[in-house]
């Protein structure tokens, strides 16, 4: 928390430089078939109130019974965050009234959460890495959903989300810029997706962030913070922090002070505004839920879950660097999604790891991004891409032809070896054939030949002509050597 201040991260105000201090509460929807305390489905997009049991609607006499899988998912997540797992935790009632909360309270965990302190290693775009402390993770129920735009004087309430399990993951105020905050959420999302404990789909609301922002002069104690509620995309998290930090700086530099409050970010207007209506309601009167016994399990249960965890992104990245000779940056790009990492490994196995990384990152990811596809929908399989790399490695095709081959396989499919045969794409290494082409070009361009003796950079033009004449199939090294010899260029 009191790490040395990095001057590059300070925000310039009118009078001073300011340090922004950020902590986050991430609400991550637990991946499970049914809800935390009822047997209703968690599926997205059902008809209104169709995924609702009498428990979720808080009908009198209904009792909550906990979903064992949601508990396991919370423990797995805690392990993935290198956090302390509490063998005994307690569910409490957080009391408040809102139409999408039929119980009149949310079942949550207050004093004794299932997961305690942990940490997340976050890589920043400039290559720096920071460790962000996790304060706790607890299990709680999601609320229903209110629609306010259906009628002028009425709100429409759908309880399908009511009772779905959430993990609230609370970070320490360890973040010092919007970049760090965005990188933290991105990394947390990656870890959750690797673990399979939350799908991380922010568009569907599976991952939402409450962002606590305060500013201070470097070296000063923490300033008063404001909480920006329910920011639902990584881009908006960055914008909300920048906007809020500047608002606070302007107030303080004008001689004012910040009042602690909850605010909403409006991306359309690019501003945060106070949620005045909720201020007075912040008295939740937590108490242990008498319907639920403490949640207890033994260390053997935790160890069993730990043994079943997949390789996590940090470990995978280190292995890619060590085993495949990748740069930390490339390895980071590849492990950002488990499916990308799996694809890469299938391509790289038994091949040149760096060449495989170049093809996957530059050609494949570039093309997928352009088409708006994810890796699962890639028209080129790992096997096909591997074959293309094999063909280059064996000298059968040139790197340039390989890109054409990639295009053909992308749009038409097929076995790359067969495509190369069928379309005569093989590289010409036969010096005789190349020589014929070279001689012809030299004979046709006596002026250029004369110039080339003075200006060796003209060699490039001759290479281009030769490649054109051979349909790009000539071995570039052979072309270069022949031309140099014939033009008398050193």
């Amino acid at each position, binding site marked *: 928390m009191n790490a040395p201040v990095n001057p590059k991260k300070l925000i310039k105000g009118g009078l001073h430089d300011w340090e922004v201090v950020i902590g986050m509460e991430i609400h991550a929807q637990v991946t499970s078939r*049914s809800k935390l305390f009822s047997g209703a489905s968690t599926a997205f997009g059902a008809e*209104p*109130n169709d995924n609702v*049991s009498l428990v979720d609607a808080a009908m009198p006499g209904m009792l909550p019974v906990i979903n064992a899988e949601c508990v396991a998912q919370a423990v797995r997540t805690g392990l993935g965050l290198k956090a302390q797992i509490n063998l005994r935790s307690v569910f409490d009632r957080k009391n408040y009234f809102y139409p999408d909360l039929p119980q009149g309270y949310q079942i949550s965990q207050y004093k004794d959460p299932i997961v305690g302190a942990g940490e997340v290693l976050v890589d920043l775009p400039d290559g720096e890495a920071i460790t962000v402390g996790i304060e706790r993770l607890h299990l709680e129920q999601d609320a229903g959903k*209110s629609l*306010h735009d259906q009628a002028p004087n009425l709100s429409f309430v759908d309880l399908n989300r009511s009772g779905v399990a959430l993990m609230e993951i609370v970070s320490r105020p360890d973040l010092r810029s919007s970049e760090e905050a965005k990188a933290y959420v991105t990394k947390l999302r990656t870890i959750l997706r690797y673990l399979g404990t939350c799908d991380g789909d922010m568009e569907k609301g599976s991952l939402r962030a409450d962002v606590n922002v305060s500013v201070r002069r470097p070296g000063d104690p923490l300033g008063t913070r404001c909480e920006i509620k329910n920011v639902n995309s990584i881009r908006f998290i960055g914008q909300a922090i920048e906007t809020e930090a500047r608002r606070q700086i302007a107030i303080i530099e004008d001689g004012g002070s910040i009042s602690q409050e909850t605010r909403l970010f409006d991306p359309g207007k690019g501003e945060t505004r106070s949620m005045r209506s*909720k201020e007075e309601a912040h008295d939740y009167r937590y108490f242990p839920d008498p319907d639920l016994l*403490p949640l207890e399990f033994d260390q053997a249960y935790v160890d069993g879950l730990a043994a079943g965890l997949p390789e996590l992104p940090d470990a995978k990245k280190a292995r890619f660097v060590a085993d495949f000779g990748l740069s930390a940056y490339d390895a980071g790009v590849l492990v950002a999604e488990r499916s990308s990492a799996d694809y890469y490994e299938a391509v790289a196995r038994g091949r040149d790891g760096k060449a495989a990384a170049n093809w996957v990152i530059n050609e494949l990811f570039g093309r997928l991004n352009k088409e708006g596809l994810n890796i699962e929908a890639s028209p080129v399989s790992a096997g096909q891409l591997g074959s293309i790399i094999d063909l280059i490695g064996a000298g059968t095709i040139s790197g340039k032809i390989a890109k054409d081959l990639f295009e053909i396989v992308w749009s038409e499919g097929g076995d790359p070896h067969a495509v190369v045969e069928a379309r005569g794409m093989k590289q010409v290494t036969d010096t005789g054939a190349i020589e014929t082409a070279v001689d012809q070009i030299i004979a046709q361009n006596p002026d250029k030949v004369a110039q080339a003796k003075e200006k060796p950079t003209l060699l490039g033009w001759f290479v281009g002509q030769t490649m054109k004449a051979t349909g790009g199939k000539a071995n570039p090294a052979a072309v270069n050597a022949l031309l140099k010899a014939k033009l008398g260029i050193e």
Partner: protein
Amino acid sequence: MSVDAQTVRRIAHLARIAVSEEEVGPLQGELNAILAFVEQLGAVDVEGVEPMTSVTPMAMKKREDAVTDGGRAREIVANAPETEDHYFLVPKVIE
């Protein structure tokens, strides 16, 4: 421990119970009587005693993760004063 009139009004508001000004005084008396009654427990020495959560030692019952309920939107909204397309309709609440 005792509550003043202001606390009574606050508790009533938090519980969304309408309490008239005439009722505040009597309620304050009743609440303070209850608190005084419960306060007798303070005389018991519970140093080092674990809070009891159940009369018989038992573990919390857990369910398997299976969809066993839902698909009854009509029943869910059956008692609602106003509904449309199986939504509950409530007076407009907006931030």
